[in-house]
């Protein structure tokens, strides 16, 4: 008996050519460029005993760098969650002069090289920079403190939140607003009870991506951080310092922690995102 189970387009019957060629190119590239280099890291670590590995990754200065990195990244991600939500809302819901410019400006942190962002922020917020001159008399020291680190992280990762929330807000039907307002809810209540639950998954995804990016950021931070051991030294710099001391084993051990944490977080975000959002629109990633 024959069953006609194939709906149109659901299972291409490989009429199209190029399966072998595209599979070959993709697999070769992924193996050589993405996976092969990872073997170097594991090769380096294979020579370590578990106790030695543990001693390196829990050394005082290294642990302090985790704290600085995670703390600043968390603050940056939370601030970006609020700021990004505001920007996405304003860009989707309102018309005003200069809106297209503001929209284009959102991608600046992805387009601008991180080292350029780094020296610019450091110059702006140092004691004789445009911002530093205003803030320091008020008692706010930004450059060479963890606030500066969080600022640089927030700068490089703000597009993640805006560009993740924006399309979801655009697709939200008018009826959602109307229903809430007809029932007599105030703007604030309606936003909190009706809009926010729709945006929540996208907001968490965007904030999560911003957090992961901040954990690994290097170029934008090192200029403004001051890089004082135990106080304003980020983990990425810790790896760099070990490399400059030719301590490849130490660098690899710390790098493996960073690598593991960021891959695990990415996986969690991917699963979360797959459950709630069918497709995230492009953007620089």
């Amino acid at each position, binding site marked *: 008996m024959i069953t006609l189970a194939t709906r149109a387009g659901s299972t291409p019957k490989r009429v199209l050519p190029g399966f072998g060629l595209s599979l070959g190119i993709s697999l070769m590239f992924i193996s050589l460029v993405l996976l092969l280099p990872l*073997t170097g890291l594991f090769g380096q670590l294979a020579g370590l005993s578990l106790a030695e590995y543990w001693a390196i990754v829990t050394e005082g200065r290294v642990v302090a760098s985790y704290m600085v990195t995670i703390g600043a990244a968390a603050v940056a991600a939370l601030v970006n969650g609020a700021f990004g939500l505001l920007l996405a809302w304003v860009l989707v819901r309102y018309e005003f002069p200069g809106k297209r410019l503001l929209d284009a400006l959102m*991608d600046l942190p992805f*387009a601008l090289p991180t080292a350029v962002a780094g020296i610019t922020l450091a110059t702006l917020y140092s004691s004789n920079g445009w911002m530093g001159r205003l803030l320091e008399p008020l008692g706010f020291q930004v450059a060479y403190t963890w606030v500066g680190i969080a600022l640089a992280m927030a700068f490089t990762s703000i597009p993640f939140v805006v560009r993740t929330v924006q399309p979801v807000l655009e697709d939200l039907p008018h009826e959602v607003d109307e229903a809430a307002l007809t029932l007599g809810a105030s703007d604030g209540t309606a936003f909190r009870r009706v809009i926010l639950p729709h945006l929540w998954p996208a907001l968490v995804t965007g904030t999560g991506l911003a957090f992961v990016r901040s954990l690994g950021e290097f170029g934008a931070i090192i200029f403004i951080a001051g890089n004082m051991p135990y106080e304003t030294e980020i983990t*990425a710099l810790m790896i760099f310092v070990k490399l400059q001391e030719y301590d490849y084993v130490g660098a690899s051990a710390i790098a493996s922690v*960073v690598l593991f944490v960021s891959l695990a977080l990415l996986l969690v975000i991917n699963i979360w995102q797959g459950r709630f959002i069918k497709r995230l629109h492009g953007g620089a990633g």
Partner: protein
Amino acid sequence: MQRIGDAPRVRRLLVFLAVALSGLFLLLPLVAIFAQAFAQGVGVFWSNVSNEYTVAAIGLTLFIALLTIPVCLVFGVALAWLVTRFRFPGRRILQTLIDIPFAVSPVVAGLIYLLLYGRTGWLGSWLDGYDIQLMFAWPGILMVTIFVTCPFVARELIPLMQAQGSREEEAAVTLGAPGWTVFRRVTLPNIRWALLYGVILTNARAVGEFGAVSVVSGAIRGQTNTLPLHLEQLYQDYNTVGAFASASLLAFIALLTLVAKASLEWRAARREVHA
């Protein structure tokens, strides 16, 4: 019809907040780059930019970007074709794997290449026997740049090609068109703008990569210094105006990237209206 947050007072407050904060947080740094670069006049800017080491850094940066783009283009198109036109086991894993460069810290990216291809790595020591040194030379810079930029083209193409489906291509094949003709005449016209934007993003990241490149470059002035590494050295030497002169060149490329993105989006929106 009324929508949430439509009251004029709320609207004005939120727009004001968004514009003011973006101005302070995003626009001010951009202005500061050019203000610093030209702080001592156009003459000093020009002598900074035409300085022998800066010119060498510009050359190396463009050379690396020029080699990176075709590699990423071939990979991106092949991967997008593979995962959107065929169904096979492991398809989703492939799509997850290409996100690795986005999750990996640039310093870690540089490190894993250094460990493998450096003198102490298993591949590096073997190559060393043939007197081939990849690290602390331009091939190393090229390799890590390809690593950090390879997802961009694929990421732009996959959602688009998925949405477009493969009906048109299947029709062309059924009518007897050979594979390459189908790709050139049917697929390419449909994806050319996304392809272009993918290339622009790849280029922006390739010229600006800092963390990964600084690990594998060795930063030899006039030889293995890319523009971002060059401006770092100038900045560390307290030559702020010189550093910002180089930075302004990169910021200019970033501005072109933003303009290109805005105009491509505008074109796509206009076509949607016409359709």
